[in-house]
């Protein structure tokens, strides 16, 4: 099991000591996380890693999962799509069914001192606040930039009963009557996807896929999904390739519920068939080691998304010191400051231009990579995430701008 002390060589002992200082201020408080799934998805992934670390710091942290039937999860899927801006129609009976499941769970649940509710599925548990009291926080993990107004209005009545709401990116903030806290997601530098790898391990993955490490490699790791714009990546690669020797790796999971997904995949395959330097890798879910090696062995990382929630693959690439070119969407501008810690682009031509620049100017590219890694070390590792959560819990009991603990 990973120990909190294992992070000291990475972020410094002083930073780990500060986590202990903060954790000490939460003595006697039980923190209860509540979400809707124990496995799969980003929320479960981060809680799985974070709860043991909080416990080691001396915080009483627990995690409960609400129970729901198929109908409930069909409704919450509709909510999810609607909050992403997709046109959906939710009937009154569906809102009622949603509330009923929340009320059943709330009646059966034993609540902690601080109730930390993740995402919309369990949001209405807050109805119990009237008779229980306690401190309540609602954490939104999803893109909230253009929510369907009707679903938003329904959720807002519950959200505003919480003490505070937490969002992952500034664009997701709403006009709300409660404080809104910015807490970005994070990567774990000790996980299989991000831990250091020996050169021969990287070599073995590249040779397994037939990629030549002696020539420049540009790589985008993401689902084959319209919003990740793999065809735009191929176009940018082709423009850049007129003046630079390049190989392109597109690697990620294949299946999505995007109706255009199969069409995009087919087009990507057709393009790849025409060029032996394009490698399209459909990776199975448990491919963290391969992703790690592909990122580490690449010359330049790309993330040319049209839309992103946060875009943590950017942090993953930067953590590996890779010069990264990414679209200025979602949480990506938080991770890259243009020309300081990476490159932000807005078009295919701009992406092609910067691919050439970084391939031809390796010293400049390396400086971006070094700065990028340092930026991730300071701002997007799990230790920063733990610090933000501890401050969030402590902030429930203090209202000043400058709090002396």
């Amino acid at each position, binding site marked *: 099991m990973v120990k909190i002390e294992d992070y000291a060589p990475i972020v410094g002992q002083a930073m780990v000591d500060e986590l202990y200082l903060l954790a000490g201020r939460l003595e006697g408080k039980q923190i209860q996380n509540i979400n809707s799934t124990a496995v799969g998805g980003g929320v479960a992934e981060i809680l799985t890693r974070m709860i043991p670390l909080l416990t080691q710091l001396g915080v009483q942290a627990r995690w409960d999962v609400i129970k729901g039937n198929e109908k409930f999860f069909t409704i919450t899927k509709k909510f999810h799509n609607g909050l992403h801006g997709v046109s959906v129609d939710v009937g009154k009976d569906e809102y009622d069914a949603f509330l009923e499941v929340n009320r059943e769970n709330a009646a059966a649940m034993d609540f902690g001192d601080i109730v930390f509710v993740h995402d919309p599925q369990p949001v209405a548990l807050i109805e119990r606040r009237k008779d229980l009291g306690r401190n309540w926080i609602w954490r939104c993990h999803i893109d909230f930039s253009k929510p369907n107004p009707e679903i938003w209005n329904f959720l807002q009545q519950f959200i505003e009963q919480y003490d505070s709401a937490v969002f992952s990116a500034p664009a997701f*903030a709403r006009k709300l009557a409660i404080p809104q806290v910015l807490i970005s997601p994070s990567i774990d530098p000790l996980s299989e996807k991000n831990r250091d790898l020996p050169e021969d391990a990287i070599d073995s993955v590249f040779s397994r896929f037939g990629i030549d490490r002696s020539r420049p490699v540009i790589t985008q790791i993401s689902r084959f999904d319209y919003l990740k714009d793999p065809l735009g990546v191929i176009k940018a690669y082709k423009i850049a390739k007129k003046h630079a020797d390049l190989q392109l790796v597109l690697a990620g999971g294949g299946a999505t519920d995007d109706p255009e997904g199969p069409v995009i995949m087919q087009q990507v395959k057709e393009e790849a068939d025409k060029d032996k330097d394009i490698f399209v890798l459909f990776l199975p879910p448990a491919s963290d080691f391969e992703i790690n090696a592909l990122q580490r062995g690449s010359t330049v990382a790309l993330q040319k998304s049209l839309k992103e929630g946060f875009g943590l693959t950017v942090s993953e690439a930067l953590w590996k010191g890779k010069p990264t070119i990414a679209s200025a969407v979602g949480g990506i501008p938080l991770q890259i*400051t243009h020309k300081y*810690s990476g490159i932000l682009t807005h078009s295919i031509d701009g992406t092609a231009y910067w691919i050439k620049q970084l391939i031809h100017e390796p010293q400049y590219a390396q400086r971006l990579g070094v700065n990028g890694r340092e930026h991730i070390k300071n701002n997007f590792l799990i230790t920063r995430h733990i610090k*933000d959560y501890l*401050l969030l819990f402590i902030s429930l009991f203090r209202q000043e*701008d400058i*709090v002396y603990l």
Partner: protein
Amino acid sequence: MNEFYFNTKLDQTLLLGRTAKNIPELLEGVKEVPEASIYYHTHKFLHQHHFLSPEPPNDFSYWIAEVLNDAQLGEIMSSVDIIQFQSLEDLRSRFIEILSEQPHQERRTLLAPQGEEFHFMCSRTFVLRTPHVAHDLEEFTEVLKRVSVNSLYYHIFDAKLRLEKGENDFSRWFRDMGKPELAERVARLDPYTFTLEGLRSRIIRLVEQYGKN
């Protein structure tokens, strides 16, 4: 006995739910947001990119230059010399003055692309006492080598501008310790032109050089 207790600080970022898509909206925001927001937008870069030198500019100038593509106004906003200001209200007034100047009003039509609006945020700062205490200059340098950059940041940046103590905590203690020249040397540093590690090394060198006098 005159001890120096090392504090550290950790920041929480609050979203104000207020955005600007052009210069007039930025100006209105700068006028109305809480002081802690002016602090956030002039110090976030420094804190998050403390390894870079010279440090990237404040958020206002970065947004004007990189998003609105107005290099001239961006440069004027970035050249506001924060070290000269004794309070956040004075600093706010300077930004208002620049953004209100007539030539910049001609840029009223510049619009941020959708999704790249300026988002106003602010900081809540949590101050904690560390177990580290220095009783003399020798102990001071030993501890300063070990504390986090957050601690250095608190005693240098927050002490002067945010807590309006007039000068940084180290200089004040050096003066109390009968080391006025050392106090003056450290007070005269422009901390905004160093990386935090560079600043740490510079202060340690000054203590070693002037602490003996």
